[in-house]
Structures are given as C-alpha cells and as structure tokens.
C-alpha cells in the first residue's frame, strides 16, 4: 500500500516542493490564505461523495471500457433508425482531421495565431453556401433545430411581424425547441397536412397566411422523408403575403435535390450531422444558417460570421464580420446570443464536402434514393405491411405501416431486436394518426443484403404474429 498519493500527472504544480516554493514567492503561508475572500460560512466543509478515483490511466481505461462495453452499437447490429440522426458513412479523413490536437483543443484565438481555424470555417461556410445556393453562412450553431428556431426569430425581426408557421409534421423535439425559443416574442402556428401524402396542406397554409406572419418554415425532405413536389408554390404564397420563407434541408440530399435558393427560400437551415459527423447517441450535432449577403439579413444574424480580407503580405486574412451586432459586443442590447456552439462539426462538414465534391454528392444522393426506394418496395411486398404509408416521393426515410399485421411497432421491433436488427423509429406516440407506423431510414451504408435481411426478418415476424 502506498502511504502518500502521487502527484496527479495533470496537475504539475501540486508537487509539494514546487507548491511551497511558489507560495513563498507569492508571500502566502498557505493555499488557504489565497482563498481569504471566501467567507467562512460559504466554505464547503464536508467531503464530496465521489467514487474512489482511478488516477492511473490504465485503471481508468479499464473502467471506461467496462461501462462503454455495456452499449450495443449500430455497428454491431443492423439499424434502420433515423428521425433526425442518420447513419452515414464517415470518411476516415473527417475523423483524422477533427481529432487533430490543433483543431480539437483550440478555442477562440485571434486570426493570427489561429489563422487555420478561421480559414477552415470560412471554407466550411463557402461549401454550405455552394450546396444551398446562398452567399452568407454563419459559424455553426448548436444543432439543426436551433438553426431553425434562430432563423424564425431572425425573420421576425426582419419583417417586424409576430407569427411563424411551421408544419404540423415535424420532429417533436424540434417543435419543442422552436416553441421554447419563440416564446414570448413569436407565436407559432402549424400548417396541416394531407393525411394520404404527408405533404403540406396548401389550402391550410393560404388560410393561415396574413399580415402578422413573419415566416413560413417547411422542410425538404420533411421529418417523415416526404418531398414537397411544388415548393415554388409555397414560397410564392408566402412572399405574396409578405412573409419570409425558411427552408430546412437535409444537406446530404443536395447533390440531387434543388438548392432552396432556386425555389425562393430566404433563409436556409439544416443539420450538419449527416456530413461526416458520427451519431454519438445524438450528441454529434451542428446547425447551419444561410442567407443572401445583404445587410437586411446579415444584421439579424446572432452568430459569428467570418469574412476574408487582404493582409499586408498579400495573403488570405480573416476576421469577424459586423462584430458589433453580436451579443459579445451588445450584451443587454443584443438580438439573441452567441457562444460556444459546434465549430468542430462545421470543420468536419467542410472536410466532408471537400472530399465528396459535386460528383460525390450527386452519386451519394442517387445511391440513397435507390436503396431507400428498393427497401420501401420490398417491405411493401410483405402481406399486411404498407410502405411508404405516406404516398409521396421520399428521400432517405419513409413511413412503414404495420397496422394491418395486428402487431404493434413495439412488438415488431422487439422481435427484430432479437434477430439483431434495430427496426424503424416508432411513430405511434409522437403522431397518434400514424399509430402502427414506423420511420425507416435507409442510406448508403445499407447494402442490398442488409435490406433483404430486414425484409426477411420482418416477413418472419409478421407471419409468426398472425
């Protein structure tokens, strides 16, 4: 047994000899003296009830492996879960770059000692701009839901109006996040949908548009994978009523789907996770906001915007654009706020898009379209199973209706789990009108064999359940 605890490797100056030397130099008799301003009643005198530490790295590693080992990941099973967090292949270069000490452990340095950080984030913004067809893109926000919520507040300020219309079919978490972020400045109302197709009910949109509506928000593809066939009509109606159009996209679709700027979007938002960011139990998130480069939009961004500038030695220099609009400068006079958000995933998305290029994005989109279509058609061939339940074009995700099988989605998923498959996300509780339906996500990571295996397993489960 050791009598004295070793100096922790992460705290060099806790070594008693050094500590005493430093205290001597300061002219203090003890560490306690340095805390002289903390009054006695505020001093914590108890002992924090924490587990015995594992200061040696090997023991810590063992401990963490044991806990993490209790997880069973999508890499060990066959998963069709999506719903805002999707399995996409992460190129090795993406992880290689975001694990670099330089990027991983940097923070908020200046354009001189952190020139690289500024350039990669400028390039990230540039490539998102290429995808969505916009000239202004900010440094990432927390996630796609925050991007949508922030864009609606921006639209509220730009138009001076007090209401946002969002689709009734939307990720329930995103609905809650938008609701929280809008209240009390912006009223949120929902646009109904066609029960057969899941598409926006344009007549309902027309009814709800009015002089108080700041923004119409819709998603391409929608939360349940559906693609609006005529977004131009939606943007025309919104603009005619003086509202801005905020479009939420899945950026991975934009090699094959039109850039939202082309059908009249004023602000484009989305989630970065598909672009080379690991799922991480839903922890790998970043959101982007993109607009035209005009003062009306730029002055309403709450986020940092990096711009390019000449240097005295004729190189590319960078810096913050319109810094004075941010909460760092404006504090209690600011619009929204800025802080530590998701820069590393912005850098990663940039690496991803640089690797993919225009050809990669197009081919990837085609592969996803084809595999998802194949999966839906095969599932639809199983007696009692209908796919897609919402009859409209779709990308990456689609609804599967099991209600005629007499089995609940929960029961089916339990059976699939036993067969090593994570079935689609159960929509029964978030969408009562879709009881018995699940959301299946099929991407480039799913091979034909994977899909056939799923179809085989579902057929078996359904047959046994009859």
């Amino acid at each position: 047994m050791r009598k004295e605890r070793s100096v922790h490797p992460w705290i060099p100056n806790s070594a008693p000899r050094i500590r005493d030397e430093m205290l001597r130099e300061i002219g203090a008799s003890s560490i306690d003296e340095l805390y002289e301003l903390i009054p006695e009643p505020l001093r914590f005198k108890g002992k924090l009830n924490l587990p015995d530490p594992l200061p040696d790295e090997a023991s810590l590693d063992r401990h963490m492996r044991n806990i993490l080992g209790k997880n069973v990941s999508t890499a060990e099973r066959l998963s069709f879960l999506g719903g805002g967090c999707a399995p996409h292949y992460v190129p090795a270069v993406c992880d290689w770059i975001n694990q670099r000490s330089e990027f991983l452990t940097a923070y908020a340095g200046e354009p001189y000692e952190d020139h690289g950080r500024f350039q990669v984030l400028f390039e990230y913004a540039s490539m998102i701009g290429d995808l969505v067809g916009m000239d202004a893109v900010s440094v990432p926000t927390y996630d796609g839901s925050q991007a949508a919520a922030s864009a609606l507040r921006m639209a509220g300020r730009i138009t001076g109006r007090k209401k946002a219309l969002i689709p009734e079919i939307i990720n329930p978490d995103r609905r809650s996040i938008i609701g929280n972020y809008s209240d009390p400045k912006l009223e949120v109302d929902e646009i109904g949908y066609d029960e057969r197709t899941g598409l926006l009910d344009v007549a309902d949109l027309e009814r709800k548009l009015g002089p108080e509506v700041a923004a119409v928000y819709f998603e391409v593809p929608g939360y349940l994978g559906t693609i609006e066939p005529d977004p131009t009509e939606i943007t025309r109606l919104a603009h005619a009523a003086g509202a801005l159009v905020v479009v939420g996209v899945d950026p991975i679709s934009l090699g094959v789907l039109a850039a939202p700027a082309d059908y009249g979007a004023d602000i484009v938002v989305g989630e970065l996770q598909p672009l080379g960011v690991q799922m991480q139990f839903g922890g790998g998130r970043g959101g982007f906001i993109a607009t035209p480069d005009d003062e009306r939009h730029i002055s309403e961004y709450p986020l940092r915007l990096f711009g390019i500038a000449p240097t005295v030695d004729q190189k590319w220099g960078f810096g913050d654009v319109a810094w004075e609009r941010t909460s760092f400068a404006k504090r209690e006079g600011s619009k929204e706020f800025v802080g530590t958000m998701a820069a590393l995933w912005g850098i990663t998305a940039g690496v991803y898009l640089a690797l993919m290029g225009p050809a990669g994005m197009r081919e990837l989109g085609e592969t996803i379209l084809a595999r998802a279509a194949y999966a839906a058609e095969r599932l639809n061939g199983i007696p009692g199973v209908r796919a897609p339940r919402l009859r409209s074009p779709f990308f990456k995700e689609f609804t599967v209706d099991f209600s005629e099988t007499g089995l609940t989605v929960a029961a089916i998923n339990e059976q699939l789990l036993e067969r090593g498959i994570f079935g689609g996300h159960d929509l029964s509780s978030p969408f009562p009108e879709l009881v018995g339906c699940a959301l299946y996500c099929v991407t480039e990571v799913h091979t034909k064999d994977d899909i056939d295996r799923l179809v085989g397993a579902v057929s078996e489960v359904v047959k046994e359940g009859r």
Partner: protein
Amino acid sequence: MRRFHQASWDEPIIHELSVPGERGILVPQVEEEIADAVGNPISRIPEALRRTEPPRLPGVSEHRVLQHYLRLSQETLGEHLNVDVGQGTCTMKYNPPINERFATSPKLTELHPFQDGSTVQGILEIMYKLDLFLREISGLERFSLQPGGGSHAIYAMACMVRAYFADRGEERDEVITTLFSHPSDAAAPRVKGFRPIVIPPDQDGLPDIGALKRAVSERTAALFITNPEDTGIFNPKIAEFTGIVHEAGGLCCYDQANANGILGITRAREAGFDMTFFNLHKTFASPHGCGGPGSGALGAAGKIAYYLPVPLVGYDAGQDRYFLDYDLPKSIGKVKDFCGVIPAIVRAYAWIMSLGEEGLRAVAETAVLNNNYLLHKLQKVRGMSAPFAPGRHRIEQVRYSFEELARDTGVHTTDIQRRVADFGAHYWTSHEPWYVPEPVTLEPTESYSKDELDEYARIIEQIVSEAYTDPDWVRTAPHRSTIGKVTDHSHFEDPGKWALTWRGYRKKYKGYFEPHEA
C-alpha cells in the same frame, strides 16, 4: 526566449485547389439488382425539385484534401501546443488524450439515440452518474446535461425562470446581472422576453450591492451572476445578493461556466442559488473544439428541478436499469436535440473519475496558486496593473490593465495581442465593454508548470520592453505568424466589401481583392 515561428503554408482557399474530375472519395454504388428494380433514381424526385446545376463544390483528390486541412491545422494553436493561459475566462486546461479514446470509441460514436434502452445502458449509466457527481460539486438536486454550452445553459435557465413564474401567475419581466458577468447573462434572458438590468462594479471591483438593492422589485424574475467574476475577485457578499433577490421574490441563477478555482471549496447551495451550470468544456476538461461542441450541465435545486429540460436519466434499482426519464410534468421540454453533447459528457465523467474528491480540490487549489503566482510576477511589469482589490489574492483569473503602457508608448492591448502570436501563445483582451481600460484577462488553470508560467510572463515582459524601446515593432506585429496584419478593417464592416463565402468573394472581386468594375 523561445525562437518561435508559426507555420505559414500560404495555403489557397479549398476552391482554388479544384481540378475538374478529381475525387476525394468514392461512394457506394447501388447493386445491379437494385438498379434494375428501381430504375433511374432521379426519376423518383418531382421535376421541380431536381438539381439541374451541380453544387459548385471543389473537386480535390484525397491526399490534397488531407494535406490542405493538416496544413491549416498547423496554423491553429490548440491548447495541446501552447501555454494556454492567455484566453482568460475560458479555462484552457489540459485535455487528456485518454478521454479521446472514450469519446471516439465505436461503442459510443455508433450509438443511435432511439435505440432500445437495453442496448444503451453504458451511456445512460455515465449520464446518470455524472448527474450525481455534479450534484455533489454544486449541492443542488438534479442536473440536465442537455444544453450545448454555457450560453445555452443560461438560455435554458431563463426558460425555466419564465415557466416557473408563469405557473405561479406572477408577471415578472426583469432580470439582474452584473457588468463583469459573461455577456450572455444579459443577452440570453432577453430571448425569453426579460429586460436585463446591469449592476455596475463598485470601487472594489465587486458588483455594487446598493445598486442591487435599488434594482430589485416585484418585477424581478431572477439574478444571473458569475462569482468570481471576470476579475477573479470572489464576491464575499454573494449570499447577501441571493438573499436580496429571494426577498424580492426572484430566483437566483449562478453562471459557473468556469468553476475551476472553487471545486470542493465553495458551492452554489451554500451561496443560496436555485440554479447553476458548469461548462464541461471548461472546468471539466472537454476540449473546446475551435468553439464547440461544448456542454453546459444545468443543475437546479428543490422544486425548480421540476422545470429542467427532458429527458433526464433515471435509475430503476429493482431492475438495475437506467432509463430516459420523461416524467417531469413541469419540464420546459427541449432546448436541444436528443440528450446533449455526449462526447463532452463522457469526457467529464472520465475526468472526474480520474481525480476524485481530493483531485478536484487539488485542481482548484493549484489553479488558484498558479493564478496568484502569475499575478505576483506580472504586477512588477512596467505599465501593467491589476485594478481593484490591491494586496488581495484572486481566485482563478485576473483582468489586468495596460492603461499606463498605452499612455506611455501608444501601444495598445490589441497590439500586444498580435505580437503575442509571434511567441506561440494566445492573448485575449476581455469581454466588452472595456470597463478596465486596455484589458487582458489571464487564467493559468492547474495545467501548467511553474516553468511554463514563467515563460508566459517572459513573453509579456519582452513585449512590454519592446513597447518602450521600439513601439512600431509591436504595432506592426505579427512578424512570425502565418500571415501579416490585416490593416483594412473595412472588409469586415462595409457590406459592399465583405465576403462571407468564396462564392460571395467571387461575386465582389476578381484576382486578389480587385473589385469587379461597377
């Protein structure tokens, strides 16, 4: 002095590297049977939605992409590479690589948030236990790990404050913060419709308690305050502050984004706070990632905990099973997708497990020791001062002033900032407004050795000496960095000149910042 030169690759913008036809990666092609069954996949898209013109992304081969990003990484000064005491308030401590092994384990990265609970017991256990640890460290009742950073946690607290008073039928629309608290303490509550009142510092640099007494009223919803503030001076009257606000019927929200100097020394509970948050990317050693992802773990006391965002993580002892707990009827709902920034949560858990209660205390004590050591050294530097609390010790950081140096030499804190880059270190001035003139905020944390602190002090001494002997050399810095100075700041302020993306640049300029003819 270290003879440093930053990497300077003169690397083009990625779009300039584009060679039509080059590929950085190939993607899986569909199997023949699928192709036969499905036909042309594009035909599945409604015509109006088909992309007719490919996105103008660069086409670059894999090695060149890797090279490009590695070169740019070399032009970025991460904590791992420098004595990172120059970004005060940010707690730039050592980010142990062992934690990256956990954060990048496929057992974590390949988890989907909708997986069956039986398959995610490991991550739920970590979340549950981190909640328990943070309860100990704060003395509060329960933590949500959902907010994605400190400002986000402030915003979430404001959501909870609003929900709490809505429940009670009280209309309270003002929040109180202080000038030396983080700007987001004033900005984020505004999103929830609160009007911030800012308490100025008194002569001692502490928030003026008289001003607080005058500010509170039946309209006061909450106090949002840091302690110690950016000055590093602990506010000994903090319990009186929370008492005054409680007396007026308001709630007290503690901004402990940075709690590095007081772990195990003093807690939110004893100071009377109803809510607090810890930045896992500051105090708890999760790396800052060039500006996120971070995590603002949000704790609440007593009945206020019922308002936390869902889901929390529960534990069913009977079944020995962790589960996502949505059963919080007063919850504000969601502020962020899914369950928060999982890698930061895992790193914070591992970091605490490595240190334990004695280790956490050693972190705090050493951070304070290091700070006072550096203060002691820098107080002797000509033209530099540490306003407020003369002769007293500070907690984890100090906001210094170069007012005298600027007056003597015409060299400003922003000039010094650029010159520090020449020595391979950071130097951050301070949050605005610059109440302390010509400010710089230094926070040594527990991570750096005495020799390293001496090195940072030598850098400051060297630049100050230059300011007095050759001020132009400092004013024209940097001289050994990636790039030279940007002198024309209109590119950041003039809408006709700024460019926020490469496509935006190409629309405004041809060649090197040569405007297109009007």
